[in-house]
């Protein structure tokens, strides 16, 4: 009986000690640097000034960033000018006046915010630019390598529209907004490919202004002039569906190759399946957003680093998507990102 009592006592003591030891271990095994990280991010203020929050890529970015913000305790405010450049300037001015810890900006063109970005940096606010750059370089840029994008798209057309089997060497570049960073840099890439493939003939170079109806009108007119058109390249899948509609209406979907780029949302994949588009160079907006989120946390963790003192650039991945791989992660839906 006494033995049993002693055993029970010993067992209980052991258990208590073990439990205490476990508590102590739990207190001591905080992930290295995590609390410092949380401390650094907690209560920090980030303002995002997009071009328009109605675009698929913007929605993906913000969903991802909001997830980070909620998890790590910083605030993210979106000031959406909804495609209006003047409203964008006001949003930027307002953001600078509020002195947040970080401004994220998607530039409508290379000039509009150039001075405002300098002002922001002078006021000690760090600036992260996403996907659309300004003439002013700031702390960080995360987004596409647009020159490479131009090369890839025109390169794709070069594959189809050169050589003896090509229907013709005629190609079209449906631009976006001519002063936009994407447009300017893509053009550099396009010119490189055109130089390397002198037989390619650029028969039309018109901006569709990211509008599907404008893309349709230009394509319809060009198809009348060049019934043997071989390829069309564009700048945003949601606009080039208009070009696709014009090609389908002319019954030339087997003749004309339509190449564009996009954020990788499911609507783009649908357009490929519906035969409106052939190839989308998918820059996967959710992955871009994750890269940008790393930049957000880095910039917020370095409060003593002077704004604009170190400038970095991160290019996101680009995946070629056609009807063979228009599935799964190449076709995200917003709800899946949340």
């Amino acid at each position, binding site marked *: 009986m006494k033995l049993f009592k002693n055993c029970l006592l010993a067992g209980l003591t052991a258990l208590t000690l073990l439990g205490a030891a476990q508590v102590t271990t739990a207190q001591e095994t905080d992930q290295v640097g995590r609390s410092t990280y949380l401390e650094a991010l907690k209560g920090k203020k980030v303002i995002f000034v997009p071009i*328009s929050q*109605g*675009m*698929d890529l913007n*929605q993906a970015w913000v969903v991802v960033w909001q997830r980070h913000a909620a998890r790590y305790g910083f605030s993210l405010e979106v000031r959406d000018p*909804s*495609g*209006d450049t003047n409203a964008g300037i006001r949003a930027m001015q307002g953001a600078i006046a509020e002195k947040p810890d970080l401004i994220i900006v998607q530039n409508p063109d290379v000039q509009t915010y150039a001075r405002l970005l300098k002002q922001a940096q002078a006021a000690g606010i760090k600036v992260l630019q996403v996907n659309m750059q300004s003439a002013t370089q700031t702390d960080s840029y995360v987004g596409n390598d647009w020159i490479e994008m131009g090369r890839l798209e025109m390169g794709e057309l070069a594959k189809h529209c050169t050589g003896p089997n090509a229907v013709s060497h005629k190609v079209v570049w449906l631009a976006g907004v*001519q002063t936009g960073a994407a447009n300017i840099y893509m053009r550099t890439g396009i010119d490189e490919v055109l130089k390397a493939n002198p037989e390619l003939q650029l*028969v*039309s*170079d*018109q*901006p569709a*202004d*990211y*509008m*599907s*109806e404008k*893309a*349709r*009108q*230009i394509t*319809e*007119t*060009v198809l*009348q*002039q060049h019934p043997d058109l071989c390829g069309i390249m564009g700048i945003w899948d*949601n*606009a080039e*569906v*208009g070009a696709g*509609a014009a090609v*389908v*209406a002319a019954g030339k979907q087997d003749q004309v190759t339509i190449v564009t780029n996009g954020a990788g949302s499911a*609507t783009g994949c*649908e357009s490929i399946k*519906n035969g*409106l588009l052939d190839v989308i160079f998918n820059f996967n907006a959710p992955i871009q957003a994750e890269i940008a989120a790393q930049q957000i946390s880095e910039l917020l963790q370095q409060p003593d680093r002077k704004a604009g003192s170190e400038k970095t650039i991160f290019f996101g991945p680009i995946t070629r998507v056609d009807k063979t791989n228009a599935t799964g992660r190449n076709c995200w839906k917003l709800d899946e990102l949340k």
Partner: protein
Amino acid sequence: MAPSASGPNCTAHQKIEIAPAAPSRDGLVGGSRLKAAEELPDGRAAGRLPLGAGSEGGRTLAGSGKSDTARPGIKMSQELVVVAISAVLFVVFSATLNNFLSQGNILAILKNVSILGTLAVGMGFIVVGRGIDLTMVAVMVVGVAFSIWISTWGVDFTLAVICGAILVAVIGLFTGIMVAVAEIPPIFATLAIASSVYGSGRIVFASDVLYAPSDIGWLKFVGNGTILGIPMSVIIFAAVAALMGFFLRKTRFGRLVYATGDNPNAARTTGLPTRPIIVTQYVISALIAYTAGIIMLGLVTGIDTRLYNSSLIYDVLLVVVLGGIGLSGGQGGVRNVIVGTILVGILTNGMTILNFSYTSQNLIKSVILLGALAIDAIINPRDEQTSQSGDI
């Protein structure tokens, strides 16, 4: 106002112009007075009945087309200037550009202006009544986006389109009431309403671009179908224009629109139901804008609500003003809209073929507009005899 101040060929109507400035209620006296007017031998009186002094004879009759033919010789109106410019451009492009004159390209020109033209018919209708409707593009994109949005709940798409039409009509009704009853100047009322409509749409739909279901037969037909080789979009535009032309010229209501536009105060004083007329106008223009949106949905399978931020609404106004419908109301008609639309169509097509840059296209378009207005100002100078209250 002294009746004698009316135009020289107005004498036949003087007897009915001595209207009692009685505090008649809208709509009560209008009908009977109109009957008296319609019984006049030349049948033109309805349009000019309430028009008081200060209106030039030719202008008060605009739209009926009869005054011009009654005059010896051809009056070089702005409409004719635009026709002349279009003809010159057409000949130059035909001579210099390959395939410009092909049947395919002519149809492409018409197809490409069908949306602009349809919107311009609606805008022209409002401007004739001395209004302006800056909500058209907002109503178009939000109405169509709304119908796609409710179809994503599982509602049958055709039913959803009808729901969209109802929403659009309600917006038009609200705009009309703001203009006619609350008497907010239309330019401000519609500017504000356009912004609220678009804003509400943006909050509800989340995305800028909404795609219609891909298996709707009639929608595909609107986009790609043809009747006797003519694209459906062109046929719809022509139908809207023809209906509007008939409505404006042949119906009593149409004549009342001219009367209201020419001199709203006089129209009201003489007992025309100006408020219901104005409200109806905005409902109709909203429905026309919606029709244009459906054409676009058929053509490109989706609707881009960012169109609200584009210059489309100004292009619509450009077509209306270019065609010769004065912003001061009471003049012009569907023919002017068609003339303006065709000029813009030819110009855009030619410049696209010539591969002009966007900036130079806009520059050329504005220079042509300015040129047309300048030529009109030289040919038909304005002075106190021809100007009208409310001229801008």
